[in-house]
């Protein structure tokens, strides 16, 4: 017992030291690295982070292979680069960590650009639009606007634009933060929450698959449009330039809209150009 105690005491002190050390450690300077563009071209390998729990943008087919709108966009990008595509499954919350820790070269995952996020990652020009705040509720629910969710249990996804916007709009709701849209949707279908907030693209598709769900778009938020972009690491202008050019071609040739039609059988909810 005695040795164990000593160990525990030492360990306890070490734990305190780790916790305190993290308060006072200083920021080391960033190092200069070659452009991801050159790296992708020479290695012929493109690593793309895609949210595979977000049908129909990212999902797995019966064979376990990734498919969906974002996967198609990633395939096009790899094709243009002459590289082999490696899809890395991610979650909404892990998009930025995956970029920051160099696990992926791009995030093609319905990434909404904003000034806050742009402090830590770089965004391309937008490649898809969505109505930010759509509400999914069971078919018989009496919900016409966001304020009807006051006091109700509402599922959102950690770290998303919707979480921020909805928490501010309806502070009285009991907000439950899930890791993925799939988990939040399951909670809604099983009655563990009364409503779920996601963008209109995701929810309209889900309501099409499940007739017990309906999608409500609050008039106050219907003009709030997300311009979702491809995410990149900061400080790589060559790579950003290439991705912007790729997105420009995707939009100007109509290839992007054709993909949207393929997956949603509709046009994007707002035009991409102008993107403001």
């Amino acid at each position, binding site marked *: *017992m005695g040795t*164990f*105690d000593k160990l*525990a*005491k030492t*360990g*306890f002190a*070490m*734990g*305190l*030291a*780790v*916790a*305190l*050390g*993290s*308060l*006072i*450690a*200083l*920021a*080391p*300077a*960033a190092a200069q690295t070659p452009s991801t563009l050159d790296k992708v071209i020479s290695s012929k390998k493109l690593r793309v982070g895609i949210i595979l729990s977000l049908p129909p943008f990212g999902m797995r087919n019966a064979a376990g292979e990734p498919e969906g709108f974002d996967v198609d966009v990633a395939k096009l990008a790899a094709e243009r680069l002459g590289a082999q595509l490696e899809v890395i499954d991610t979650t*909404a*919350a*892990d998009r*930025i*960590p995956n970029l*920051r*820790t160099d696990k992926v070269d791009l995030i093609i995952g319905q990434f909404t650009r904003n000034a806050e*996020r742009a*402090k*830590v*990652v770089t965004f391309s020009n937008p490649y898809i639009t969505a109505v930010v705040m759509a509400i999914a509720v069971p078919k018989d629910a009496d919900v016409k606007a966001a304020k009807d969710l006051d006091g109700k249990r509402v*599922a959102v996804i*950690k*770290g*998303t634009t919707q*979480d*921020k916007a909805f928490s501010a709009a309806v502070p009285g709701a009991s907000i*439950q*933060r*899930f*890791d993925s849209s799939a*988990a939040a949707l*399951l*909670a809604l279908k*099983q*009655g*563990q929450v009364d409503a779920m907030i996601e963008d209109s693209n995701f929810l309209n598709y889900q309501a099409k698959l499940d007739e017990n769900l309906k999608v409500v778009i609050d008039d106050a938020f219907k003009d709030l449009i997300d311009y979702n972009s491809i995410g990149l690491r900061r400080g790589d202008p060559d790579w950003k330039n290439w991705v912007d050019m790729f997105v420009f071609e995707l939009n100007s040739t109509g290839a992007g809209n054709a993909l949207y039609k393929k997956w949603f059988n509709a046009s994007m909810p707002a035009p991409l150009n102008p993107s403001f």
Partner: protein
Amino acid sequence: MFLDWGSITSYYGLLLQGAWLTIVITLASFTLAAIVGVLVAAARASAVAPLRWLATVYVEVLRNTPVLLQIFIVFYGFPSFGIRMTAITAGILGLGFNVGAYLAEIFRAGINAVPRGHREAATALGITPLQSFIWIVAPVALSKVFPAVTNMFIATLLGSSLLSVIAVPELTGQTNEISARTFLTIEVYSFSTGLYLVLTLGSALILGMLGRRLFPARARG
């Protein structure tokens, strides 16, 4: 890669709230587990055969399937049978019943380690079986398995992090969320790792002291 330790200072409150919820969940599920453990251990030692079989099935199923799936079943599966509860309750039940299966085995080992002579002496002195279990068998059994019980407590504390997947804002849940919101991934995860170390080693220290107070003979030996 730049690290920005200064910016996480404004999130200490949320992280400490998360740590507090972790403590509450751990205590609640461990209490449940202890009750389940005693009952199941008693059932496995029972003279009634079906009771023994039932307890064996319980222990083997719960110990040989992932606790994460058990938590999913309670939270996402039970509503299909009309059983609904909050994420925290579902998590405490899932974790508590799982740890209960392990504790049952630990308690059983402890009971088996009590020399048969103790019970025979009790019977000879006219002490009822229940009294003999509570006052003679249980204290000796617990003293023998106390370190194993301490380990299970720490396993429960660490296991409570699984509840983040059903949207419980305990320490891991808060950490994920703050990381997602602020992108201070490395900073906030290292801080929370330190907090977990403080919690686990703190528990080990407290339980060690409790063990010495409860079982002084064992500490001297």
